[in-house]
């Protein structure tokens, strides 16, 4: 397990530990969670501000991409971004601007960062969403089957394959697929989301979209499938020694029912929590895959911004990625409260 899983696993454990001290009322605990998430978001904003406006020696340079500024231009920049003023008022300025959706302008094309990010949001969600759904369903199934028939040929093969996939840099897999299926055997496109000449609307357009989506989605699905399957397997193996399974067998249930009705629901809880917690990171992890496949999403935007360097875009992207993680964490927390009766408030 990565450090992430270990950390998230402990976080999940501690939720059980703290169950007794939860405030009463489902709504109230929900409000507390949302409040906590907002607080974390605030810290992220502070950190962002610190990183981009305070840390660099010459923030003006970063914000306008000009190497040589005349005194007048410098004064102009300072005025726009409030750089000359004391830090607290700078931060306030920054906060207000951000909350109004004003994330600055891109260096490269002078478009507002918020517009850029907005236009890139859907491709990333499509890619990440599809691959998460597929990798969760397939990965969980493989993990369950492997754990229940531990030591079988299926289990040994799937564990070996998953370990190997997990050891692979995801973009490398993308490159290999690109060579294999888009160059050597040209059945898939090499880049982009749509055909350059439009692709057409309606059914033809959707078909074209799917054709372009296939390879990058396959890559992400394989990489995360490996991880989720290993987690599910591990989680189910932990449950297999539980006494309540013996009770279930003693009642006369068939093996399949014991697994389906008793073992899996218990093992699924920590797995789904970890998958949700991972989701936030999957979104930012798509940076490399989008780069390899020239998929026009947030990841590719970040990559382009990275090389320019286009700081306003980077700043905005960082904010968004952090927000994604915070939201995913919040959803995971809420899901656990809803589905695990031990955590639920009486």
């Amino acid at each position, binding site marked *: 397990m990565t450090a*992430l899983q270990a950390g998230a696993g402990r976080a999940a454990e501690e939720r059980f530990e703290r169950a007794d001290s939860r405030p009463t009322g489902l709504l109230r605990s929900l409000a507390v969670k949302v409040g906590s998430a907002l607080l974390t978001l605030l810290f992220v904003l502070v950190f962002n501000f610190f990183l981009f406006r305070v840390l660099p020696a010459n923030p003006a340079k970063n914000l306008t991409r000009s190497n040589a500024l005349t005194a007048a231009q410098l004064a102009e920049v300072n005025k726009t971004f409030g750089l000359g003023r004391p830090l607290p008022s700078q931060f306030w300025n920054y906060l207000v601007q951000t909350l109004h959706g004003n994330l600055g302008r891109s260096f490269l094309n002078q478009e507002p960062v918020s517009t850029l990010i907005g236009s890139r949001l859907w491709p990333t969600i499509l890619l990440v969403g599809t691959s998460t759904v597929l990798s969760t369903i397939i990965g969980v199934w493989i993990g369950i089957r492997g754990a229940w028939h531990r030591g079988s040929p299926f289990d040994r093969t799937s564990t070996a394959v998953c370990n190997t996939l997990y050891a692979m840099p995801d973009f490398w897999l993308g490159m290999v697929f690109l060579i294999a299926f888009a160059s050597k055997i040209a059945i898939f496109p090499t880049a982009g989301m749509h055909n350059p000449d439009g692709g057409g609307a309606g059914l033809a357009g959707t078909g074209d979209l799917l054709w372009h989506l296939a390879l990058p989605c396959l890559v992400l699905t394989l990489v995360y499938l490996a991880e989720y399957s290993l987690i599910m397997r591990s989680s189910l*193996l932990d449950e297999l020694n539980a006494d309540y399974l013996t009770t279930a067998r003693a009642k006369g249930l068939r093996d399949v029912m014991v697994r389906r009705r008793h073992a899996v629901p218990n093992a699924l809880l920590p797995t789904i929590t970890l998958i949700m917690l991972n989701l936030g990171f999957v979104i930012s992890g798509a940076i490399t895959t989008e780069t390899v496949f020239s998929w026009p999403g947030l990841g590719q935007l970040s990559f382009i911004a990275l090389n320019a360097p286009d700081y306003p875009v980077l700043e905005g992207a960082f904010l968004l990625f952090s927000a994604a993680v915070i939201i995913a964490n919040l959803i995971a927390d809420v899901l656990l409260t809803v589905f695990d009766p031990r955590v639920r408030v009486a």
Partner: protein
Amino acid sequence: MTAPPATAPAPAPPSARQLSWARRRRALAAFWREFRKDRSGVAGLIFLTVLVILALAAPLLANSRGLSAALSTNPANAGPGWHYPLGTDADGRSVLTELIWGARISLLIGFTATLLCVVIGAVVGIVAGHYGKITDNLLMRVTDWFLVVPFLPLAIVLAKTLGPSLGVIIFVIGITSWPGTARIIRAQAMAVETRPYLERSRALGAGHTHQMIRHVLPNVMPLLLANTILTVAGTILAETTLSFLGLGDPLRPSWGEMLNEAFFTGGGTAGNQIWLIAPGVAIILVVLSFTMVGHALESALDPKLRERR
């Protein structure tokens, strides 16, 4: 009267130090026996040993001048040949040479970043587990916050702001990876804190530092070791990703750098597959080895985990 004959003194009973060393040797032998049972762990260990030897012996195996694009005389993007068993890259450099020298950088970054990560994580974990209450709460909040911030964007931003260099990469990876270690060590430290000999040492007047270093740390060490090995696997992958995106140090090419060059100069997708595939395979093997060894370590240390693999 003669002086009483000097008799050889009876052999002194073993000192406390000798006893504890004997006990440690026995524990180590038992541990090695258990570790050996895991075949994949042993295979991983062998592979890693070979790799480290290769990396250290790089100057003997492949002339470092082979790394210089200006000095190369081989044809570019060539297939396997006598002087370049894995072909050449877009500048005519032997891929195998780059692979061997790249091993040094990748392993170096992996180890040092892990060291940084583990040191921070262990300190935070032990201190939080030992002092408890407010300190623990505070440290866990900080840890939680670091867990929330997504690794790649943070790494990108830090690397960009601080400039591309080996040190920055190591710093960035270390700074983003410690929370996982901290949580694990904290849980273990808390378990150790409840043990009787800690209570006894407190009663005997041991100070906080003494307790943490002489009692908690040795008991947390095995878990820390297993966690360290597993973390190296993660740091190598992280470094590969950062280098691929162009944030690495171009003067010290790691395997990730090779992938960056192979992909973005078009050589890889155009025709030179070996240049693209070789570093990837190397990374897979190394990461797998560390993972297998780490799992074998965990299984050998914790009997409960043995049935799980």
